[in-house]
């Protein structure tokens, strides 16, 4: 367990090595690092050994508070990793007196840190938002189509995929509470295979289970092709999604 937690946190990077080196530096440089030594050294070592990596503590924590390793790994928040590394770097930088050596020192340091890890930007986690709400354009447009039509609150059915990355579903939910999204969580493949082959049965069951006036579906899906036969009219479209409204 301890190994898994450490692997999860350090993610095979050399940051553990850098952090350990910084702790060793603090142990060595008694005079320069007087204040930081007091603050970081005892605390970091004690917390890491007696709390984070203590099997007894892990067992208690999992019994009462945590159920996943991903949750327990947040225990590392109490370890001043960044502060320790920055402190030692600053101390090293200040101890080099000559300007040329300082520049060389900074350069070496930057290279070491850069090759040890990468930035969040380089991992491609970010996108430029399509609107001020920072949700997908389709979510915003489809929400507004329904809200303009209903004038108050609306019950809608939407195909919600299993994964959390369902930007349309969560975009609408984040934007407004007035559209109630009633649907089952179905993965795309199952939905097409199991339900569309017997669409009438599926539809009957859906109408028995939930009440709704609006349906949001993929433009090219089977549902879209058959829905107009179920007394639903086309209301609007955005991106790859279509909104249908129950006929009066």
């Amino acid at each position, binding site marked *: 367990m301890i190994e898994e937690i450490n692997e*999860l*946190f*350090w993610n095979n*990077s050399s940051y553990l090595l850098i952090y350990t080196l910084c702790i060793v530096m603090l142990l060595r440089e008694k005079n320069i690092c007087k*204040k*930081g030594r*007091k*603050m970081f050294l005892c*605390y970091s070592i*004690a*917390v890491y050994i007696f709390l984070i990596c203590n099997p007894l503590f892990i067992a208690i924590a999992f019994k009462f*508070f945590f159920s996943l390793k*991903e*949750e327990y790994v*947040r*225990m*590392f*928040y*109490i370890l*001043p*990793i*960044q*502060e320790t*590394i*920055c402190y030692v*770097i*600053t101390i090293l*930088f*200040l101890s080099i007196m000559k300007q040329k050596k300082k520049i060389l020192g900074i350069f070496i340091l*930057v290279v070491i*840190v*850069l090759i*040890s*890890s990468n*930035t*969040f*930007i*380089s*991992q491609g*986690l*970010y*996108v*430029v*938002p399509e609107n001020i*709400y*920072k*949700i997908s354009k389709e979510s915003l447009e489809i929400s507004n189509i329904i809200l303009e039509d209903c004038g108050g609150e609306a019950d809608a059915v939407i195909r919600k995929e299993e994964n*959390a990355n369902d*930007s349309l579903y*969560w975009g609408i*939910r*984040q*934007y*407004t*509470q*007035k*559209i*109630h*999204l*009633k649907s089952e969580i179905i993965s795309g493949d199952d939905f097409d295979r199991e339900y569309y082959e017997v669409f009438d049965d599926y539809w009957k069951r859906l109408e028995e289970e939930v009440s709704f006036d609006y349906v949001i579906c993929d433009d090219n899906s089977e549902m879209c092709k058959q829905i107009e036969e179920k007394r639903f009219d086309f209301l609007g479209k955005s991106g790859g999604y279509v909104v249908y409204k129950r006929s009066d």
Partner: protein
Amino acid sequence: MRILGFLYLLIFLPFILGNLIIGKKEYNGNFISSFIIGFLSILSIFHVVYLFIMIGRLQFHILYYCYIAILSLLGIFGIIIMMKEHRKFKIERIHLKSKLLYLCFLMVLAQMIWQITHTMFIYGDDFSYITMVNDIVESDTIYGINYHTGELQDVSDTLYKYLLTSYYPFLAVLAKFCNVHPLIVCKTILPIFLIPISYMVEWEFSQYLFIKYKNRITYLICYSFINFVAGFSWYTVSFRSWTWVWQSKAVLATIILPFVFYYSYSIFEGEFSKRKLFILMIAVSAACGTTIMGIGLTSLIILSQAMICSIRHKNIKNIFGGIIACSPALISMVLYLIFRIM
């Protein structure tokens, strides 16, 4: 007007409250220190008010008006005290000729601009949090909406870990007060405030490490740089700082925990005063409002520091001090257990 709302709640009131709490003797014109303490106070006060309203199963607008009224009254009281004691607004002397200072500003500014102009394409758990904030504002209930469907539900159906978290109702108050959609508040407005606050905490932290101004700036630049390149894992403080900085976990990891770390150190290692202990209690209370995890993590930091300092100085007073400082966490823990059993 909307901008004024944010400035009132996130700048003006924290500063006044911080001044009120920190006391004239310790104030000494330290703007940053009083501002951080004030910011934690507004979270802490909200947590206390929220718990009463939530247990009473009252509506959101009651929470909203109670909180704004209490804060405004405290604000007026703070101004009166400041005027009576002739306290001057004095910002720490800034060495404007220092190139390092500009470099530091640039790095923080770049991080802010990046987060304002970009968004994460992955959703993580932010969808549920923003949904909950928006549901609170639009439905006038406190966690009375099923965040999956948007339909009304009984509060008892809400997970207790959310019920004990006051941070998202706080964001709802912020959104309602400024009349701005929670999506804009969280993803665009809050990084403008929270990122500088996290660096302010580190700036305060640095005063315990270095005496010289230049060295403190160097430390802050290093911190900003490490923050930028520490993309080795999605469980680090840097990740919180660079991604969903408005989330409760991020506020806990980037602002509250570093504050608790250096502040408890300053108490147990240096001057031990009732006022400082009270400020630490405020920080613990604010942490309890962010996430259930905050209850445990802040207590662990304080008790570890207290224990280490007690052994070093052979002084048991620190341990008692630590336990007193953790009392808000103890109350939250009892509530947590009651909710869990129920």
